[in-house]
């Protein structure tokens, strides 16, 4: 314990802490005294008293619904009826045999490819901004800022960008490429690429800041040693930077996969899932809240949940948490 800490707490009105410290020194055995059973009980209950509310809400709003998903998935419930008719595994059978389900799941592939593009861009800018660059903080802020913007606002910004005669078409016209312009959101073969591009614009900043933080925590001596050995920038990237940020890259891979599977906001706001841009999550919530098929929607939610959890579990096996040993 340092006096600095004591000082801080004393300022907050706990001058008794200082007295407490001197007591510790005088009676080192004080804590070992036998405890009456009432105190033992109190000791066992105290942590749970602190956990009562946070854990209670977590169970009420996450784990109870998760258990209900399992229950609903075995029924044909519409979300309103008092009775829930048990139909066994019919929802699962329907889900796995309906080609429409696979089609919406495959839409995720566009976002997955987008996520890899986004990681590559993020890694590139994180690498160059970790070296000597002027106005570093300015560039860092500009690249990062889109991540903070409200999703509905981003949706509107890009609806405006992609609309016929909008920003994108005008820029193409400016550089003489107007022949390339098309229905960016109206053409079913184009819409998912446009939406995945929007998603790349939105999330690159997040990956970039994570990578930059990881690169900056690599000890500077490693670079100096590499310079002395005559390693060029490219070699330094492969032999120092990439191994040094391995864990964050692994984590981003997993976030990319689970994020791509769970895409919702951008396509929902921009196209409402039209023109073949419907994703699995959009289909799930439409099924539950528009078509009132809570049973089938629960099945879909459970299956996707299982996929996301398995993917994350694999990540934890492949890239174990190094810090776990410290705690």
């Amino acid at each position, binding site marked *: 314990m340092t006096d600095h*800490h004591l000082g801080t707490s004393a300022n907050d009105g706990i001058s008794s802490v200082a007295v407490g410290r001197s007591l510790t020194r005088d009676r080192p055995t004080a804590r070992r005294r036998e405890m009456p059973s009432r105190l033992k009980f109190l000791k066992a209950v105290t942590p749970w008293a602190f956990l009562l509310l946070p854990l209670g809400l977590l169970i009420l709003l996450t784990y109870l*619904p998760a258990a209900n998903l399992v229950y609903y998935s075995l029924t044909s419930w519409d979300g309103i009826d008092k009775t829930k008719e048990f139909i066994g595994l019919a929802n699962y059978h329907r889900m796995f045999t309906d080609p429409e389900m696979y089609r919406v799941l495959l839409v995720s592939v566009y976002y997955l490819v987008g996520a890899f593009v986004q990681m590559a861009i993020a890694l590139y800018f994180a690498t160059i901004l970790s070296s000597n660059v002027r106005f570093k903080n300015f560039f860092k802020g500009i690249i990062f800022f889109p991540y903070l913007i409200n*999703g509905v*606002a981003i949706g509107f910004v890009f609806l405006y960008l992609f609309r016929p005669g909008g920003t994108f078409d005008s820029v193409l016209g400016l550089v003489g490429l107007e022949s390339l312009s098309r229905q960016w959101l109206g053409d079913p073969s184009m819409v998912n690429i446009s939406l995945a591009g929007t998603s790349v614009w939105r999330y690159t900043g997040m990956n970039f800041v994570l990578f930059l933080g990881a690169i900056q925590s690599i000890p500077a001596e490693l670079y100096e040693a590499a310079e002395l050995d005559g390693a060029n920038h490219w070699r330094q990237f492969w032999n120092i930077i990439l191994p040094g940020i391995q864990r964050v890259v692994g984590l981003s891979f997993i976030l990319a996969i689970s994020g791509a599977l769970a895409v919702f906001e951008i396509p929902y706001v921009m196209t409402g899932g039209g023109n073949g841009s419907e994703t699995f999550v959009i289909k799930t919530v439409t099924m539950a809240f528009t078509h009132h098929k809570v049973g089938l929607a629960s099945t879909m939610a459970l299956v996707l949940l299982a996929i996301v959890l398995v993917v994350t579990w694999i990540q934890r096996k492949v890239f174990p948490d190094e810090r776990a040993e410290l705690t």
Partner: protein
Amino acid sequence: MIKQITASTAKYVSLAIAVPVSLFPLLVVLFASLKTKEEYGRTSPLVPPENWFNFSNFVTAFTRGDMVQGFVNTLIILAFSLVGAIFLGTMAAYALDRFVFRGRGVVYTLFLVASLIPSVLMQVATFQIVHAMGLFNTRQAAILLFMGTDVVSIYIFLQFMASIPISLDEAAMLDGANRWTIYWRIILPLLKPAIATAVIIKGIAIYNEFYIPFLYMPARDLGVIATSLYRFKGPYGAQWEIIAAGTILVIVPTVLVFVFLQRYIYNGLTAGAVK
């Protein structure tokens, strides 16, 4: 030497491309928001407005687009859920960091797994519970969900709490302080920097949240920022200069928060993501 110069040129060229890619989509929306209806129809999206002080679209968006109500509702929800999330989060972190008890590992895992679940999916079943509690179409629905399912702040608190020496607790305990007093008078005040970070990160997340208010608060007077803006799609579908003004109104507070609180945002996001 020459190689070094080209490398450094490439660096600045790529940065010079990144800046307009980030900002230009937003800048053209700002252009549109300052144009009159007639001017908007006549000019290209890339052309700046003739009068940079034409705020009439903003007035329309603010008054007729229910943006005032949206800001008020967002502020109310922000205030209550942040206070709640801070208390619940610090209490959970205190229990998990400062006590050794049977079931600790299980509780920790419960919080961890919850942070991995895509929130929108869970609403299929959570909706039934919130509905059964009679909270549908009330602000309490969003407040309850925002403070009850917040795991990222717990991680921020856990990380920070590990750096507060346990000897402080022990000394206070010998002095007769009970665990609540220690939490309330020692831990909570020392957690201030972590609380600031969590408030900002969580605050931005709540400000940006679209689906929970959209699903639970469809009533017109219960619109928040995100849902009020979303409703521009119907009545103003063809009036892009009004939609643009609404969009800019939503982005401006984010710009201000970012400019003034950058450091907290960077730190908090790194802490929250690398669980």
